[in-house]
């Protein structure tokens, strides 16, 4: 049964890492994000926020609980069929592809026609402030530019939900402030539903509509 417009619903999610003793990184989390909302997930390092994000996107299999989108359970759907976008801190751009090759990757996977693909790439590069950079190599870009390409790439295939794992924390503080503002604007322009993990309250405030705090595997 689908509930149109319900957005992301996480219920009773638990993730335990094996070990002696096992570590319960996510200890029963309920979280709802309605469409168009940008939620900031704030907490100290090691509180389980990145694991929660990984479980939502499907990189980590939860031990209990469920992840649903518009009322459809996607807990056991492989990552590539979830339609969730993902942006990391760094080290995520394909080094063997140009800027356009990176942004167009998701469109290639979806089998988008060439003309439409090129148009979409140009549009997104413009939106992230890198118009005309399509032919550049990844190695020619600065850290801030790389993160802009990463955002453009994850938005290109029109994901239902965008998950951002500390997207700005690898950048220096001045650049971070400017990019945070831009990021908020870009996400709103596309009315994206998003969850952004960060440990910087100021950054969360600049980008997000709502801030959720997490500690020791649970939301406060």
């Amino acid at each position: 049964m689908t509930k149109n417009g319900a957005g992301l619903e996480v219920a009773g999610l638990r993730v335990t890492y094996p070990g002696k003793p096992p570590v319960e990184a996510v200890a029963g989390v309920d979280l709802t994000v309605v469409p168009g909302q940008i939620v900031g997930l704030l907490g100290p390092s090691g509180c389980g926020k990145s694991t929660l994000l990984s479980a939502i996107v499907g990189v980590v299999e939860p031990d209990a609980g469920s992840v649903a989108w518009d009322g459809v359970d996607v807990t056991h759907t492989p990552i590539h069929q979830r339609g969730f976008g993902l942006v990391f801190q760094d080290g995520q751009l394909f080094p063997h592809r140009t800027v356009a090759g990176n942004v167009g990757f998701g469109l290639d996977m979806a089998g988008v026609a060439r003309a439409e693909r090129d148009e979409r790439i140009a549009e997104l590069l413009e939106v992230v402030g890198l118009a005309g950079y399509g032919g550049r190599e990844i190695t020619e870009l600065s850290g801030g530019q790389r993160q802009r390409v990463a955002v453009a790439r994850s938005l290109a295939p029109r994901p239902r939900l965008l998950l951002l794992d500390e997207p700005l924390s690898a950048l220096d503080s001045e650049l971070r402030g400017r990019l945070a503002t831009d990021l908020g604007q870009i996400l709103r322009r596309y009315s994206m539903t998003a969850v952004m993990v960060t440990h910087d309250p100021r950054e969360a405030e600049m980008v997000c509509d709502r801030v959720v705090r997490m500690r020791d595997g649970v939301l406060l």
Partner: protein
Amino acid sequence: MLRRRSLHPAWWALAAVPVAFLGLFFLWPLLTILGRGLIVDGHLDVAGAWEVLTEPRTGKVVATTIWLALLGTVGSLLLGVPAAYALFRVRWRGQKAVRALATVPFVLPTVVVAAAFSALLRPSGLLGHFSLDQSMAAVAAALVFYNVAVVLRVVGGTWAGLDPSTVAAARVLGASRWRAFREVTLPALMPAVASAAAIVFLFCATSFGVVLVLGGTRVSTVETEIYLQVNQFLDLRAAAVLSILQLLIVGLALWVADQARKRRERATSGKRLDGTRAARRKDVPVLAAILAALGLVLLPPLYALVERSLRTASGHGFDHYAALFQQPGRSVLPVPVWEAAVNSLETAALAAAVATILGVVVAHLVTHRTRRSALLDTLVMLPLGVSAVMVGLGMLLTLNQPIFGVTIGGSWWLVAAAQAVVALPLVVRSIVPTARAIDPHLRMAASSLGASPWRVWRTVDWPLLRGTTGLALGFAFAIALGEFGATSFLARPDRPTLPTAIYRLLGRPGLENIGMAFAASVLLAIMTASVMMASERMRTQVGADL
């Protein structure tokens, strides 16, 4: 990050391919050897095996094996450690070329090395009048020739990265140059030296071609004894028992090597820095002495091989090379040497293709470290610990009988299968580090953008692995081209490979046959070297567009 599922059907389905290959062409043959050695008429016969082990002949070959390996190891270290200093710690012009030259012996097929020393030591050779032919000294010298490159690589890399400021600190505290070397440099170098020693010992203890050719009837190790038992005395049981014995020796050497490697990894876990320094005027005598010693060991055999391949009854010429294209006497070789070369190319091509495809699959499966991937990794590495001779013997024992009504014994591709088993561990070892160096975030990003696991591999892993895989393919091809241990058991007499043809020619009397053997060795060396060079080039070219 971990993907945690209770069952991994896709992983196991893919793993079935290399496991099936190794099961058929390696594990089953190996178990057959064990069975042959220990089981007679359906029950365990330890007494019979014990009888073989306690024969005086067995004791002698075991002693020879260990003694030769020790000689080879000590010799390689005595020459290799100073050479590592001269070629890696100190910088001077032309050093790169000498380094490249010094690694040449290691990429040469064993038969070629054996032929080179044979050319040098035969009664008619440069050092002929010392009558070193078929002596321990001759075999040990060849082992040193072969393994100096290993010491250079392992010790040189560590030495180049040693922090020179610790030596300076010791000198400031009043230590003489020698004291500083003994108290500071040597301890820091020891793990690398120990590791190199263990590897060289292993290589020497499993060395087959060199001992078989140079040792002749007088010097024989466990490896060559296995060959003799099979081919001359037709005693498969004795061969099997000796194989089990060799397995124990090699297992012990491997264990020691692994301990040494772990120590080295711990010792070099810090940040790598450039500890090299430019050569000064007062370094010249030391460097010259070291290089002269290196040259004296490395150059004469190569010179002798080329010279002898050109020496004819009436001076020098290309007669022996021309003879490679003619049919030699039937009792010498059933086909012309060029046909053996073509056989070698065909078999090596198939072996390299199989080893590389399996290697890529295995590398993909073991990139993420899990318990099951460690298990697969161990299985694939096993052939390294089991000498090529045993791979050959095992396949001879198992696959010469019909399997499910199909007779595959004597098929030419059986040789390729054995060569693929031998090459596979090295292929995997060269691809895995590159595969592990790929940021897992790249794969996650690709799958979040809608790429299925297969397309993640196609679009992320493969473009980044292509260069290394090309290199591994080249290495596999070169290894297969020169492979002698397993091939000598499996190649049919009427379809020799180039190495087995060289071995036959070396054993036949007559100046023409020997000359042909040397010419064929030069040919094989050139073939192997060009494959290595081509694959190195391919890597840099493909690597450039990454």
